[in-house]
Every structure is written in C-alpha cells, then in structure tokens.
C-alpha cells in the first residue's frame, strides 16, 4: 500500500465529483479555445462570403460589360451631323434639317481616321407631297454608305444601308402599304418611273413614310446639287459613356458642323450598368460592415464569457475541494495519526486538482476546437484545424487548466494539510 494507491482509489471512488470538477474546467477551456475558433470561423466565413459576393459581382459586371459591348456593337451611338447653323428647334418643327453642307463632308470624315466612326450615311431629306398619290412623304436622297477608309479594317465592313441603284427607290413600310406597292413593282414619283428596290421593315419612326432615292436625283429635285443636309453616323463606338468624344473628334475635321445624338439607349444602359456596379459595391460594403458588427458582438460575448467561465470553474473546483476535504476529515486524521506528513496530504489534494485541470483543460481545449470545426461546416482536416486553433489560447487552456484547478484547490488542500489530527480524532470520539 502506498500513498498513490490511496490516491487512485479515492479518485475512482469519488469519480462523480472528479468529473463534475473536470467538466467545469473543460467548459472554461472550451470557451477559451472555442471562442477563438468560432471567431476564426466567422472570419473565414466572412472572407468566403465576401469573396463569393465579389466573384458574383465580378461575374455580373463581366456579363453587363459583355452586354454593353454587344449593345454597343449592335447599336452604338447614333448621331446626326448637321451644319453648325442648323436651328434644332426649326428642324424639330419641320421634321428635317433645313440647312445644307457639301456632300464631300462625309468623305472627309471617312478618310480622317476617326476610330469611333463605324458607318457614315450622308443624306438629303425633306418632307414633301408625292404628287402622283397625294401622300406626304419624307423624300430622302442617299448615295449609300461611305466606307471608312481612314481606319484600317473598317472600310470592308458590310454597309448598314445598301445604296439605291439609279432608277430605283426604297420605301418605308407605311407609305408602301398606303400606295399599295411591293418590292419589284414600279411607281411613278415626280413624273418618273422607279422600280421599288425594297420595302423597309416597320421602324415606328418617320422612316416608315420615307422614300429613298439616289442622292443626285434628289439633289436635282430639291435644287441642291452637290449638297446634303445631314450625315448619319451610325453605331459609333466610344470608350466613354458620352457622345462628347465623338463630337470632339468630328470637329477636328469638320469645324462648321454640330453633332446631335438621336439615340441615347446605349448611354442609358451604360448608366444602368454603372448604377448596378455601384449598387453591388454598396451591398458588398454593407455586407462587410454587417459581418464586422457581428464579429464585434461575438468578440464582446467571448470577452466576458471567458473570464466568467474561468471564475465559475475556479469557484466550482473550490466548492468541490472544500466538500472533499470535509468528507475526508476522519481519513486525514487517521492518516496523520499513522505518520503521513502534512506536505503528503497537501500533495494528495493538489495532485487530484492538477489531474482535474489536465483532464478538463485538455478535453475542453480539444472540445472547443471540435466545436469550431463543427460550426465551420467543413470536413475535418489539419489545414482547417491549423486555421482555427489559436496556439496561444490552446496552450493556455491545456496548461492553465491545471494551474487554475490547483490554485482553486490550494486553500482547501492547505486546510486539510493543516488539520490537527488530534482535534479530528478527539472530536469524532467525543
């Protein structure tokens, strides 16, 4: 029989008390390591969450960018180049430009090397009454699209508006229906016969009442030889969200013109894209702030939960140790009567407290990390464990457990060791 046999027997006999104390230390250790682990899980989730959101935003932005690119490719900015002295209000009132400019302006632009230009269509147009039918038509002279020769690779693009051969006309859908003609038939316009080259699709604009005729014929009819009253620059592409770039470039070659944007859909979409991007950025920032607030709340929770659990564990170990000393008064008395020394009695109690601390500290430290791993929702791996474990806190939990437990049990152990065996034995005998 040795003192350690006695120690082991006592531990086994009072296992419930041992485990109750160990659990309290384990809770404190678990709060210490688990709290840190859960905060790291939170950080990890925040990073993942924000990364996912950013990726989503990037994908969305890329999609919008692509849409934008497609929109611009399909449509671009449609601008009308007019003589500088053209009164836009007057043009609105009569429905067509009322001033003129040389028709070689289109050629000068085409040869100027302006990157933003795609399609140039010089026109001479005027509302007039079709004498043979009595219908009001937008008589438009065209000479076909002017190839952009100043920019490499731009000139061989397929034209957006096919030229009208001499002796032919193209007609808007509405006017063709009104006069009852179809493509391939013949119409008489201003005393001359023309073959209907094609009937355009319904556009929902003044073009539905237009009759397109070769430029020189219209110049002749309107008494404006060698002159046009507008150049349509269609599907102009610029890298900014404004037509200002196009106007600036055009003015370098044609200082006496003005540029008038007549389709703003592309800009609207670009603005929408920017607004969407801004909204995504705002949402991302709000999410980040929300996660930071949540983290701060959790941090505050663990900031008071950790000392509370530690103090609770220490108090619980203290109570259980006192109870243990009280229950063992007679035993301590007889052991002292046998000759067991005070420091041996002290050692019996402190060794038990240290074992409680080790068991609880280790179980709690591992349990806390396990809790963090579980809450992460990821599979168990060393990488994850290394990420979630705060080594300092883990070591504090493991080595601090025995220190905490021993410190809490020191008072009761000193009382046990300092107990006068004669007092105990006499007291019990009385």
């Amino acid at each position, binding site marked *: 029989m040795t003192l350690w046999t006695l120690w082991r027997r006592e531990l086994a006999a*009072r296992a419930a008390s041992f485990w109750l104390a160990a659990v309290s230390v384990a809770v404190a250790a678990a709060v210490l390591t688990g709290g840190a682990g859960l905060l790291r899980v939170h950080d990890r989730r925040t990073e993942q969450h924000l990364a996912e959101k950013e990726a989503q935003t990037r994908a969305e932005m890329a999609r919008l960018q692509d849409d934008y690119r497609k929109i611009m490719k399909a449509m671009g900015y449609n601008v009308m180049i007019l003589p500088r002295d053209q009164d836009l209000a007057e043009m609105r009132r009569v429905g067509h430009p009322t001033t003129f400019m040389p028709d070689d302006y289109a050629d000068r632009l085409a040869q100027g090397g302006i990157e933003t230009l795609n399609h140039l269509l010089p026109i001479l147009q005027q509302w007039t009454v079709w004498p043979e039918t009595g219908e009001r038509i937008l008589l438009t002279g065209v000479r076909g699209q002017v190839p952009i020769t100043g920019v490499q690779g731009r000139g061989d693009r397929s034209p957006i508006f096919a030229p009208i051969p001499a002796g032919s006309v193209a007609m808007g859908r509405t006017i063709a229906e009104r006069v009852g003609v179809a493509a391939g038939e013949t119409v008489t316009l201003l005393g001359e016969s023309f073959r209907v080259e094609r009937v355009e699709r319904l556009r929902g604009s003044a073009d539905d009442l237009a009759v397109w005729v070769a430029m020189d014929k219209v110049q002749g009819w309107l008494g404006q030889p060698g002159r046009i009253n507008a150049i349509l620059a269609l599907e102009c592409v610029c890298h900014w969200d404004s037509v200002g770039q196009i106007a600036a470039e055009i003015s370098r070659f044609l200082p006496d013109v003005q540029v008038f944007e007549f389709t703003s859909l592309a800009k609207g979409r670009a603005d929408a894209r920017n607004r969407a991007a801004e909204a995504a950025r705002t949402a991302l920032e709000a999410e980040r702030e929300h996660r930071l607030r949540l983290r701060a709340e959790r941090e505050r929770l663990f900031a008071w939960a950790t000392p509370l659990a530690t103090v609770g564990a220490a108090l619980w170990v203290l109570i259980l140790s006192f109870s243990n000393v009280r229950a063992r008064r*007679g035993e301590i008395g007889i052991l002292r*009567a046998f000759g067991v020394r005070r420091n041996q009695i002290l050692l019996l109690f402190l060794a038990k407290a240290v074992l409680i601390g080790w068991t609880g500290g280790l179980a709690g430290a591992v349990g806390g990390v396990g809790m963090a791993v579980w809450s992460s929702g990821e599979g168990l791996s060393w990488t994850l464990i290394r990420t979630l474990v705060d080594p300092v806190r883990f070591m504090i939990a493991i080595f601090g457990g025995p220190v905490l437990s021993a410190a809490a049990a020191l008072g009761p152990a000193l009382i046990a060791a300092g107990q006068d065996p004669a007092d105990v*034995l*006499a007291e*019990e005998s009385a």
Partner: protein
Amino acid sequence: MKVELTQVTRRFHTRRGVVTALDSVSLTLSDGEWVIVRGPSGCGKTTLLLTVGGLRRPDGGEVKVGSHDLYREMCSEERVAYRSKAVGFVFQQFHLIPYLTVLENVLSPAIVCPVVEGEKRAREWLERLGLGDRLDHKPSELSTGERQRAALARALFHGPELLLADEPTGNLDEQLAGVAMELCEILVRKGGTVLMASHDERAFRRAHRVLKMECGRFVS
C-alpha cells in the same frame, strides 16, 4: 514499552472558557502491562490516549517514552516514526477509510512504514478476528462490530509495542469481545503495553490495572 507521564496538563480554550482535559496527571505504563482508564464522557480519556500517542502536546508536564521525552526531546520526525512503528491506534469511530477494502484498510499503516509480507500479515489478523470472508468488502458493507474488528486488526497489523484503544470492545458481542481481549493479552504477554479507554466490565477483569478518571484527574 515503558511510558511515563509526569504532572501532564492539557487545557482547551473554548468559547465557554478554559476546559482542563488533563489536570496534572501522572501515570506509568510498564512493558507487558494492560491498563484501562474508565470514566464519564469528557473526563479526558481520549486526550490522555492522544497525548501518549504523540498526537496531543501537553501544556505542562512530561511524557517519557522509554528514556526520551516525547514532546521535548523528540522532533516531529521522530514522533512520526514513533507513531508509525511503535503505536497502534483504535478509535471509537474506527476511522476506516471508506473507499478502501477491509484488507487495504488494514494495510494502510504501511503507507508510512512498509511491513515485510504486509498483505500476508494483514490477512492473518483479519482471519483471527473473523473477517476472513470480508477482505474485499468496503467498510460501508460491514456491520458496526465488523468495522470495530477491522480497526483493531489495522492497529495490530504492524506489531506495535503500544496499543492505544478507545472503547475497542464497545460494539462487539461477548464472543468477539473475548477474541479482541485475547489479542490484547497476547500483545502484553509479548512485552507490549496496552492503554485502553473502556467501560467494558469484561475488560476490567482481564486488565492489570483499571484507573478511574474524572475531570482530567485520576481518582481512587
């Protein structure tokens, strides 16, 4: 073992005043002598046993064990050695360790002073006291008489020269009390000394001397 108490006084300071447990007590215990001290509860019997056992330092007087004063000449380590080797204690409340078996309880003095073939000797003592079939039982599984016998076996296990027993037969029937007293007789025949606090008339008949104690003094 010769024990000599001269003018031993022990007082306790309580809230109600000073209580004199031993009042100038003088007593000599010779080798091979069995002395019984009787008296009412609180008269100082247990204090006397504890003082002789080296557990209660007197306020005055001397307690000589052999040729040395137990409290003045022996240091703490020597008193521990005296208790663990030379003295066997039997207390009224037995003080068996609750989580040890009967056999382990008897072996428990060996924690301080290992005994050669301790387990064999412990078994023999328990057999002699009729507890051979209770070796692995816990104290809580024993009757009061069985616990008292286990406590007696523990006190005699390491072969003490001095047995200090507080009412060791109080809970035993006639037959077992006879066995216990026989063991005391064997001890004194071998030159040992027995100092017993008892009210048992059967013990009075076997002891060499019976002393009456009242208010911390021996009375005639």
